[in-house]
Each structure stands twice: as C-alpha cells, then as structure tokens.
C-alpha cells in the first residue's frame, strides 16, 4: 500500500518533532543528566493524590458534564477572580479540558477558516504551529530577540499583520525562553490587537511560576476580555502533567463553539483528574508556594552558572526555563546540543526547534534537582572549555 497517497496531506506536511530526535539520541547515552524536561520534577502534592484515591473509592468513575464538573468550574471562576479580578461565568464561559493542549486545538479549530493566519511570536512552544496547521490555518512567525529578553515588540507584530491575520498566540511566562511581559508591555500589544481586530489565544499555563513582579493576565487589559481566550491548567503549577486536565475561559460564543468540538471528540476530561484538580484549586496554594520558592532558587543558580561558563543569558522571570546563547561557541544549536549529549551526557534542547529565532540558543529546564543542575553546569563548563 502506498500510504503516502492515503494519509492526509495535511498530516504529512507536519515535519517530525525536533524534540523527539533528542529523545532517541539520549536513550543511547549512559549516565545522562537531563535539562530537557518540560515538566515539574515534583510529584503531585500528596493531598491532591489523596483526594483522587477517595474519589475512586467513592466510585467516581462516570462521565461528567461536557463542560466539566460544575464545582470545579466554580472554583476556577473563583481563582480567576481572586488572582486577576476576572469574572467568568462557570455556567457557560469556562470549559474543563484534557490539558491546555486540547483547549488550544479546540480554539484553533473553532476559529480558523482555511488559510487564515495565526501570528506566532517565536521562539515558542512546539505545539502551536502543528495545531494551527491541522486546523487549516496558516502560520506567520514573528521573531523576538535576546536583546529584548524575548518580549514581543508591538512594532514587529504590526509588521507581520496582513488582511488574513486572525489569531495571535501569546505565551507568557514563555516556554522556551522564560520571558514575561508586564502590563505596560502587553498594553502596547493590546493596542495593535484592537486596531486589527485580532483574537488572542493567551496560554498562561506558567502564570503561577512567576518569580519577579506580578503576572498580568491578558484579558485584564482594557477591551481585551471580549477578544481573549484564556488558557490555564494544572500541569505546571500543581505538578499534575500526567493527569491531563486544564481549562479555558472565554466569551460565551467562542466557548460554545469549542464546546461543540469537545463534546464530540473528548466528551469530558477524566473525572478522577477533575476531582484531583478540584482539591488542587481549593487547597493547593501552600504546596504551589513551596515549589515556586524552590524553582526560584534553582533559577538563580542556573542563570549564574551559565553566565559564568560564558553562555550568556538574561534572568528570566517566569516558567522553569532559561534560554542561554551559545553563539560564542561558534556551533549551531543542534551541533551544540548533540555534541554536549554525546560528549558529556547532558540533554538540552536546541533553540531552533522552537523557531528560527531560537537558533544560537539552547533551552535548559531547571525543573531538575539542585544536584543535577550543579552536575550539568560542571559538565557544560567542561564541554565549552574544550571547544
């Protein structure tokens, strides 16, 4: 059978994952230390796991409402009100999804007509482009720069806009750069969004992992709530990646459209995960604070260490990634990452997999134990010295 004639060209057009390659490479090397992991190194806090045991014991094994458990939506609404003074109705403006991943896919599918453009400030999270393409959209990438600490400039956004521009994806704090945008930065973006009538997908999954200043939720900016789809979840803040639960808050009309897809393709997020998430929003703050404190300490260690090695990086204010420049070594990002892995057994992700403007950089995750970070820094230092 000639599968290339059978499989959808839309799927075939999606290039293989650049991250996957490093996964395979790493499996061939012994004694690997990984700074390539995009998830917390904490296990989900015990009280949340315990809530899940009780839930199972009680027999919570059914489907829930397509929207998700009402109780959970109510708690999410409370959280958004408490943290950002944002008002969303738990009845029809909040949808519980199988992670932010599903929610992003729903939004893009609900919004895009064939060939409409999605503006992607890059370097960015690797799922945005494939999701947009699979939804029939066209991707327009916008470069950001190290000298701006990888913030999006309003001017660059403006220049990328065409009559087909429809959606702007924002992700702050950022995966992979750790960049954040404060209120003033975002206001300039909001200006352009209004001018060009864009819809903003604001992926704020790292919002709780903000170490300096306060996270500004995009929907809080004047006039933006009605054109913003807000994504957040439990994976990063509560160390719950494997539970597959997240949520989206948006104006009713778009939420209903997303809900239409969700009800047929997913039905609902797993009930046990929703019960665990309920415990997380209700009682998770103390554990979140502990984890944030610990990430923050490691952030300072890794930023200092990398700069001392000569891999220049700014001190990112959010998420758990640093994005140092490796330009001084003369190697490309891929060469650097591949050789570092083969010669010293340290996994980092080459910056170019997050977009062209990530070339010359690597992503290092500090969601790894302090001992690992020190050992990785030692090995990276040795590697750079002998180049």
């Amino acid at each position, binding site marked *: 059978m000639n599968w290339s004639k059978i499989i959808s060209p839309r799927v075939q057009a999606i290039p293989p994952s650049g*991250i996957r390659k490093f996964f395979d490479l790493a499996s061939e090397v012994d004694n690997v230390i990984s700074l390539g*992991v995009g*998830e917390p190194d904490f296990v989900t806090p015990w009280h949340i796991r315990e809530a899940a045991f009780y839930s199972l014991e009680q027999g919570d094994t059914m489907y829930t409402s397509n929207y998700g458990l009402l109780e959970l939506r109510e708690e999410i609404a409370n959280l958004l009100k408490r943290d950002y003074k944002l008002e969303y109705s738990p009845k029809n403006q909040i949808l519980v999804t199988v992670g932010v991943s599903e929610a992003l896919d729903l939004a893009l599918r609900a919004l895009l007509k064939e060939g409409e453009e999605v503006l992607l400030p890059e370097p960015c999270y690797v799922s945005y482009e494939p999701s947009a393409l699979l939804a029939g959209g066209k991707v327009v990438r916008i470069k950001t720069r190290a000298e701006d600490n990888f913030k999006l400039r309003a001017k660059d956004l403006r220049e990328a806009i065409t009559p087909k521009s429809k959606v702007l994806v924002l992700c702050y704090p950022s995966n992979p750069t750790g960049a954040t945008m404060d209120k003033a930065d975002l206001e300039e973006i909001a200006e352009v969004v209004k001018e060009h009538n864009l819809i903003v997908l604001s992926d704020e999954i790292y919002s709780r992992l903000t170490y300096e200043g306060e996270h500004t939720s995009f929907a809080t900016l004047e006039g933006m709530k009605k054109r913003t789809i807000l994504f957040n979840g439990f994976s990063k803040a509560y160390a719950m990646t494997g539970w597959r639960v997240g949520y989206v808050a948006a104006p009713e009309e778009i939420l209903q459209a997303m809900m239409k897809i969700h009800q047929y393709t997913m039905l609902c997020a797993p009930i046990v995960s929703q019960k665990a998430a309920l415990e997380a929003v209700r009682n998770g703050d103390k554990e979140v604070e502990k984890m944030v404190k610990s990430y923050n300490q490691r952030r300072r260690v890794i930023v200092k260490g990398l700069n001392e090695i000569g891999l220049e990086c700014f001190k990112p204010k959010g998420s758990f990634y640093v994005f140092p420049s490796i330009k001084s070594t003369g190697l490309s990002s891929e060469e650097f990452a591949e050789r570092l892995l083969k010669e010293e057994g340290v996994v980092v992700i080459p910056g170019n997999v997050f977009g062209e403007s990530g070339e010359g950089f690597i992503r290092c995750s500090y969601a790894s134990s*302090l001992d690992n970070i020190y050992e990785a820094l030692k090995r990276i230092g040795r590697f750079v010295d002998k180049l």
Partner: protein
Amino acid sequence: MRDDILDLLKNNSKLSHEQIATMLDLSVEEVENEIVQLEKKNIIVKYSTLIDWDKTNKELVSALIDVKVTPERDFGFDAVAKRIYKFPEVSSVHLMSGGYDLSVQVEGRTMKEVALFVAEKLSTIEHVQSTATHFMLKTYKKDGVIFKGETKPAERLVVSP
C-alpha cells in the same frame, strides 16, 4: 532571610555559603554574617547527617520511653529532664502535654541493653513515677524525609516539550 537560610541548611547542611547566596540572591558576606550569628546564638546547634541505619549492619536499637514525673517545688520538670538527658544513652528528651510528661529516646545495641538502662538508670531517678518503653521497629520517615523502600514512581521522560 534568616528563615530562608535555615530552611536551606535544614535540608542540606553541605551547601556552601556561595551556593546559599546565589539561591537566595544575597551577597556571600550577608550569608556568612548571618550564619555566624546563628551559630553564636546557638540557633544552629550542630550540622549533622540523617542516616538510614536500617540499611547498615550496625546493631542499633531505639526506644521511646514515656516517663511520668512527680514534680515538686524547687525540683520541676527541668531538673528531672536534666538528670535524664545527661546520660549518653539518651538521644532526645521532650516535655510533653497529655498522658505523660517526658518523652525520652534511648539508643543501645540490643533490646536488653536498652531495657536494662531503663530499669536501672531511668526508673530509679528520684521523682520518676513510672516508665513505659516502646521499641522502634522500623523508620518510615524522619525529620521530614521519607526513607525510601523498594517502590519508585515512574521516571519522567528525558526529553519533553
């Protein structure tokens, strides 16, 4: 700052002053001065190591002893506690609320040794009214640290987006 330094050291007393300074965004001098103060004031009492003795061949038996005391004027709990904690066999002593007064941990090489110590030395102390000895059979968690058994959680993928 003080609590943050103590929290870090409590977890890992091997951290250097430089490491602590980086982790807390302080200068090395600040950290050094603070630690000197903490040591001087005996807030930091000692730097020790948490050991899972069950994994070694060392013969070590621990018991918790509930001690009831009849305190008298001019001879209170503190004085009785002192009589007790001076023995090197005693590893900790706490004054308790509730059904008994002092909780005493005693260590020895064998159960017999510990039991004899209680019978001969502890219960004969003046004002000690009664003792109840509980031998510890297994340590699951100590000082906030779980002593790991056989089962391990799933490992994270080495690389993820």
